[in-house]
């Protein structure tokens, strides 16, 4: 999966336009990065990559790149 495709999926999770995101975007700067988005991220990871993630790992994400890094099969 390309980086752009990953960003599209993260944008879908956050319910924002992909153009608003880059790998360097700081998640805490986005009002949409909240507990609901964390659950949507888990569902996306399960559906597209068949993997699970701990809550502590998600809360440690600082940038969009951190989220992209776990999006592997």
């Amino acid at each position, binding site marked *: 999966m390309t980086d752009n495709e990953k960003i599209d999926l993260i944008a879908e999770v956050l*319910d924002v336009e992909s153009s608003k995101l880059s790998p360097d975007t700081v998640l805490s700067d986005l*009002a*949409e990065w*909240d*507990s*609901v988005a*964390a*659950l*949507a991220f*888990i*569902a996306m990871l*399960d*559906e597209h990559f068949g993997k*699970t*993630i*701990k*809550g502590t790992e*998600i*809360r440690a994400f600082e940038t969009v790149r951190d989220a992209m890094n776990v999006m592997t099969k």
Partner: protein
Amino acid sequence: MISKKFCNISIEGLACAVPSKVVLSQELTELFDANSVNRFVAATGIKQRHVTNGKQTGSDLCYVAAKKLMEEKSLSGDDIDALVFVTQFPDYKIPSTAYVLQYRLGIKQDCLVFDVNLGCSAFINGIYFLAGLVESGTINRGLLLVGDVDMEYQNTSDISFAGMFGDAGSACLITKGTDSINGMIRSDGSGYKTIWTPKPGARFPQEKNGPLFKTMNGEDTFTFTITKVPKLLKEFCNTFETPIESFDYCVLHQANLMVLQQIAKKLKLDMMKVPVSLDKYGNTDGSSIPVTIVDLCEKLKKGERLNLIASGFGVGLSWGVISLTIATDDILPMIVTDDYYKEDYV
């Protein structure tokens, strides 16, 4: 393996009660910004909840549901051989609230009575216990009461708690009969901290600091749910050779809409077969499955017989699946009540 087909058993009746006070999710805008509230409503599906007037407890709601159900079925306290009350919020520390309910409902002394501390898998586990007692011949008829009021969430600063939980109580009669109930139960104590209220209890009897209310690791709870629950539902259907499509409805614990959609997606189940009561009642903890059945029944014709598969999952960690049949005529319409027990102790 904890799975069993219980034979010669029937669900004789089901009733639920909720408080009359309704809180709309949009009222959360008084505490949180409108965008957060809209996202919360879209993700959880919760538009409103019925909440306690502050005096009602889970046992009060169960009492009203049980009394009405016993009247409808022309049963007296002499006809009940076991009363199980499943709750996370008992009326008193000691004794078990089930004994107070036995007294209030006028149930005979020749009766097995106990509380069980369980949350969102309460109805599934409760049916499993009582089905075993009925099938073994230990009892002829059991009364399962599941009820909670989550007063502790009303002042929280976290929207996913503040707007999530509704209050409800349910009563279900299980008796010797001509049907069967299949059940499958799973438990994972290694996840005991995922949803917990550590204080006050015997482990920390003197500690006054720190939160005294329930904490939940939302992400880990969600992961547990969307992985373990579809897996168990599939195992259940394979074991009992009952394809999921063969059931009229799949009634899931009403955790939130995202959870229901995710489980349905994994089971390739149309959401038309997954009834939702979250919109009206929120997440009503252990009684959410009976609340959803009652809510569903209000949309169906009388004289039908429903073939249901149901799954509850949550604190413990605990999760399970049952299948059962129930006649719509045996499901009472939702009871709305403000009654509560006027305790004379001060």
